[in-house]
């Protein structure tokens, strides 16, 4: 139990025990392995107590039926959060014009505080985590509404600083509630804030940050290093940081590979586009190989997706206008088959390597 620090770790352990039981039964059936009665009893007793303990402490799913129900709860929780969030927004919009400014301010400020307090209290009691995460998302929505509406009421000039505040708030709740969705919200707000600030330093209006996709590269680097921190207790956080880091690199590269005029670089637009296309291909391949080596499936998949996108957009540029459509799509399919063969060879090579290494 020493290594188990989160629900996801506990669930992995339970799944491991169930898999062991299934494999043991199979081996006993074909007379490969037969444990003595004392041994079997000791193992069963130990595993039964462990599952019970994990179930009490982390509310894990002990069988497939419970897993399906949990998935349903997760979906319901997400839909409930979205619905409640939208409801809060529209509720306020429906009635705010009937309140004086003082009452509007009181409602806007107290709503996120009250929800935060309830979320905090529930965090200690809700072992499933679904209700806490739902409430946390609604709390963030209330806080966003809080600042947006105060800005409207007092006609305050919009600023990118609001995104920094929302990012910090979402980050704190993400770590408090161990919620990847909230972490994603925090990263999105932070990405927008940092890129807007970089744009502002170069003289542009903060809302125009998307017109220079290179503004997002620094965000990508920051997220990459944040992902390398120890997130042992926070299941999936490292993956979220990595994936967003890659997205915030590849999407700007993809845009710039077709729109050289969006670059800060004082070079010919076509040269910029060509360079970014090469960068896109090379980095996608490097990411895939790095992901294979480190066993990060998220990196392999993301690299794979963007390599494919870069490749097919290149095909489109080269052939779409003049090639018959049936031939174009045939080439696309043949390329996919070629990539399948390459990945199959890589997989076999990976398996051979793991056999050689002790």
């Amino acid at each position: 139990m020493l290594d188990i620090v989160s629900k996801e770790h506990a669930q992995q352990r339970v799944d491991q025990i169930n898999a062991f039981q299934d494999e043991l039964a199979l081996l006993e059936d074909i007379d490969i392995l037969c444990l003595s009665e004392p041994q079997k009893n000791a193992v069963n007793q130990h595993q039964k107590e462990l599952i019970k303990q994990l179930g009490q402490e982390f509310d894990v799913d002990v069988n497939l039926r419970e897993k399906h129900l949990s998935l349903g709860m997760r979906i319901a929780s997400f839909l409930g959060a979205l619905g409640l969030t939208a409801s809060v927004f529209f509720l306020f919009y429906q009635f705010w014009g009937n309140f004086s400014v003082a009452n509007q301010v009181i409602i806007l400020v107290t709503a996120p505080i009250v929800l935060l307090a309830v979320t905090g209290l529930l965090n200690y009691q809700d072992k499933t985590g679904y209700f806490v995460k739902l409430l946390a998302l609604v709390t963030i929505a209330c806080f966003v509404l809080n600042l947006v509406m105060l800005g409207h009421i007092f006609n305050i000039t919009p600023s990118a600083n609001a995104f920094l505040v929302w990012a910090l708030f979402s980050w704190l709740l993400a770590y408090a509630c161990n919620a990847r969705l909230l972490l994603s919200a925090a990263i999105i707000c932070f990405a927008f804030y940092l890129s807007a600030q970089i744009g502002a330093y170069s003289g542009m209006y903060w809302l125009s940050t998307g017109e220079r996709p290179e503004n997002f590269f620094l965000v990508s680097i920051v997220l990459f290093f944040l992902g390398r921190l120890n997130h042992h207790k926070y299941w999936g956080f490292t993956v979220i940081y990595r994936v967003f880091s890659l997205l915030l690199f590849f999407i700007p590269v993809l845009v710039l590979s077709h729109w050289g005029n969006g670059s800060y670089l004082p070079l010919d637009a076509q040269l910029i586009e060509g360079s970014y296309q090469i960068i896109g291909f090379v980095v996608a391949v490097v990411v895939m190989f790095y992901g294979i080596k480190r066993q990060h499936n998220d990196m392999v998949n993301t690299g794979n997706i963007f390599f494919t996108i870069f490749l097919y957009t290149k095909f489109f540029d080269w052939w779409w206008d003049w090639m018959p459509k049936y031939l174009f799509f045939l080439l696309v399919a043949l390329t996919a088959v070629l990539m399948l063969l390459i990945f199959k060879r890589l997989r076999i090579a990976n398996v051979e390597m793991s056999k050689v290494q002790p």
Partner: protein
Amino acid sequence: MTLRMFLLKPKVLFTLAFLIIIVSNTWLLIAATLNRSGPPTAMLALSERELSLPSAYNNENSGLALRIKWRVANSQVNDYSYFGSYAPDWLDEAKLNDLDVDLTGKQPWPEQQVFLVLELNGKQYQNTLTAAQQEFEQQVALIQADTSIKDGQKQRKLDEQRQQLTRQQHEYSRLFVIDAGLNPEHLLELYNDPQQYIITKGIIRAYQQNRKNKLYVYGQISSLSVPAINVPLEHNKLMKDLQAKPARGWQEIKFPRYQVTVAYGQRFEPWIEQIQAAHKLN
């Protein structure tokens, strides 16, 4: 326990989140208070010509904000009625350089926030009225001299011209953007009549166009940073009553139905002081 472990304790995280709510709201309220402290940088009487009511009554939103309607004078365009993002004559390459707009980078050049000067019922507006009057007289002369059109059609065309002139005189905005700068204090010194000039933040963008085989750089005003002014509860009864009435037809001359006293504060952000129905005005 390390600092990291301490900071990641749920109690600490929730406390920090609470502090973020308090600090951010405090900052916003202080900013709003600072804006309204001291003498306003502008205090003008704007009518429905300059502050428009939302066109469709939105059942889902009980709040109300009046949209600021402004114009620019552009001699390239023979239509002074247009509201929105036209390029004023004065926002040329020299002015863009004064505003530190980077014209060396690639196009499209990104937008920039600057301070804009809006003039109410001033020289720019009077020039527009004069031009509209001259245009009307020219068109009337042309229509009357044209023997190819029938009397009924002639009358219709004359009515259209008269209507257009009347719109300029009574419907279209008297607020014109006449200047821009980076230093609001300097602009306040130059345009020091708070009852006629507004200094506020706005967004501009530079463009390049090929005119008669020559590259011509000009600027365009995209929008004001605060494009609409919230109407507080104590002032919105008249507005709600007007919204509840059937919308006026597009052919109808929209004479202003209300007057709004608007103030701009130390942060160059607006608020509404008073709203009066037009029939109550002297």
